[in-house]
């Protein structure tokens, strides 16, 4: 029987799972992702994690707990930097240690450090190190890495075409399936900014994307924008770029969308107590002040977020934006 490696369905799962899965499968390892978030996974996470951490980390704990007895290894890489410039949130940097020293009876953890600032081959070396855990030789790991890169490229292309990460993962598995969730009476287009692990975890985001779609709103996220367009935003008129990759992307996306002014509304989804978001949200808010033509709202989620409260706020926002748009059309 093949060795089983568990990957928690949280945090970077939503951006790198297809790549990781392809890599592991190629070196002959079976990948087991944890299931979709449920109430009991969240409760497990809340019990295990420190009270002061943000919900996404609590969820990560929950998913680790779910995988605990079912796998031979846990894949919790220490992702420091993947683009040579910006790092990830300090909690990502200390993630393997946090899990290792606060959860008992864990299977061995693969905590490879990924830092692309340490030379051109550093990521390949990181993957070779993973290969060594399972006795794969260098040629096999290099081949697996290249294949994984190919899958990742394909995945990013699907994202740019407008699919959300969960949909794109489905498409990779079974190509050719039609457009999921056909929409009726679409007349508004919103951007939901925030971290993929909050937006696409439909349990913790109280299904915000689906709810907006039901209200007749087309939803896009920062992942759907071409990276080159984001890179053109430079430092967003700031003397210093934001240190954290995902925050940097969200800020650039906000600047781009505000400047273009083609979008009907921007929502920022943030988690209670999120460190980087305290800056990011303020910066987006200040930018929003300059662009009065694009409505902006911040939504905060935590482990107590209720379905009804969220739905009410979304409905109200959508109604106001729609009324405003109609009024503008009448004036013309």
């Amino acid at each position, binding site marked *: 029987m093949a060795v089983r490696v568990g990957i928690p369905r949280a945090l970077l799962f939503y951006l790198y799972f297809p790549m990781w899965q392809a890599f592991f499968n190629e070196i002959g390892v079976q990948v087991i992702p944890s299931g979709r978030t449920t109430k009991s996974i969240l409760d497990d996470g809340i019990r295990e994690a420190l009270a002061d951490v943000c919900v996404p980390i609590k969820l990560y704990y929950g998913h680790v707990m779910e995988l605990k007895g079912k796998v031979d290894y846990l894949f919790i890489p220490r992702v420091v930097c993947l683009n040579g410039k910006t790092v990830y949130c300090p909690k990502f940097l200390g993630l393997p240690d946090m899990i290792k020293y606060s959860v008992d009876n864990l299977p061995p953890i693969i905590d490879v450090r990924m830092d692309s600032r340490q030379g051109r081959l550093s990521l390949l070396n990181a993957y070779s190190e993973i290969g060594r855990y399972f006795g794969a030789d260098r040629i096999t790991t290099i081949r697996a890495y290249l294949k994984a890169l190919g899958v990742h490229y394909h995945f990013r292309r699907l994202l740019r075409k407008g699919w959300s990460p969960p949909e794109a993962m489905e498409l990779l598995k079974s190509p050719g399936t039609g457009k999921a969730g056909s929409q009726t009476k679409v007349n508004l287009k919103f951007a939901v900014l925030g971290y993929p692990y909050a937006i696409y975890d439909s349990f913790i985001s109280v299904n915000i994307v689906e709810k907006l779609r039901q209200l007749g709103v087309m939803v896009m996220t920062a992942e759907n924008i071409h990276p080159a367009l984001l890179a053109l935003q430079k430092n967003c008129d700031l003397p210093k770029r934001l240190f954290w990759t995902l925050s940097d992307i969200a800020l650039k996306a906000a600047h781009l969308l505000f400047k273009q002014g083609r979008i009907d509304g921007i929502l920022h989804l943030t988690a209670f107590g999120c460190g980087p978001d*305290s800056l990011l949200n303020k*910066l987006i808010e200040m930018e929003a002040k300059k662009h009065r033509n694009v409505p902006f709202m911040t939504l905060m989620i935590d482990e107590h977020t209720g379905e009804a409260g969220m739905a009410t706020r979304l409905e109200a926002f959508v109604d106001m934006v729609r009324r405003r748009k109609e009024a503008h059309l009448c004036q013309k």
Partner: protein
Amino acid sequence: MSKVTFPRMGESWRAFKLLLEDLGNEVVVPLRPNKRTLDLGVRHSPEFACFPLKILMGTYLEAVEMGAGTIVTSGGVGPCRAGEYAMLHHKILQDLGYDLKMIVFEPPRLYPLNFIKNVRALNKARVSIRGIIDCIKRGWRMLQALDNAEKLSHVVRPREIKRGTTTAVYKKVLDWISGAYTMEQIAEAEAAALEALRSIPQDSSREVLKVGIVGEIYVLLEPASNLEIEETLGDLGVEVERSMFLTGWTRDNTWNETTHGLTIKEAASPYLPELVGGHGRDSIGHTILYSKRGFDGIIQLAPFTCIPEIVARTILPRVSKDYDIPVLTFFLDEQTGKAGMTTRLEAFTDLMRRKKRFQAGAKCLTG
């Protein structure tokens, strides 16, 4: 010429004032953070920004009211949020309609040009390069003197016979040090200050517990943000050793890493091999080193939502178990009350004392 102000961190303002005035600036000394500072800061800061950002926001706003037009502060290279704070402060102040100049010092090791440019901007009296070096040296010497006096006050306070003497004497000697100007005067004032502190009547037979304080630098250094925890502990008969002083930290981060810094890194590496920003790894390293030195307990201070300290806090229970040393964590924010903190400290002190006596072989543990 606009007046200059800077963040306030404990008593270090005395040295910064000296340095900036020598360079020909008119200085607005920031006020000690008080209720109003907090109110102002909280009102204009993002809700989940950490405590230091809010306090500094308030401090800057108060300084602006007093006529400051330039703010000198430090930058950083991440991944801790503090590195971006100067930028955010500037943006918020602009948003409020204040036109200020922000001079941000980045680590000179990485950005030497930035350092030179900033010094030139601040050098309004056109002091020569040698003169600047001389000023920096004197400022540095004064910081050391201030730190040494504070360190000694932590040792003397738990042993004082009449409660409150140390605090009173300490407040007095600070003025002696800040009144000094030349190198010799500073050294003289320091010697006199240390002598005055040492000559406070002390009870040498008293059972004194030793506690190490670790955590985030701002809440460690600014007594107004940690509700004078060192004083409270001293009054409870606990000798405090703080892991961080401005002189030590500056040395590690501006020029080269001292061997001291390296040992902390080594000590922490089995638990946290990665630099998570701020002082997360230092907190773990210091905890281990303190326990090896036979301390009775550790107190971790961190601002609410501080990311690096949350990482450290998650790992500390295991360190505490492995090294058999009690650890108490305080997440501080504008809601923290002094009475609640004192109660927790009293309980912690009682537990440490009980543990110490039990280990010393005492049978009767009650009363």
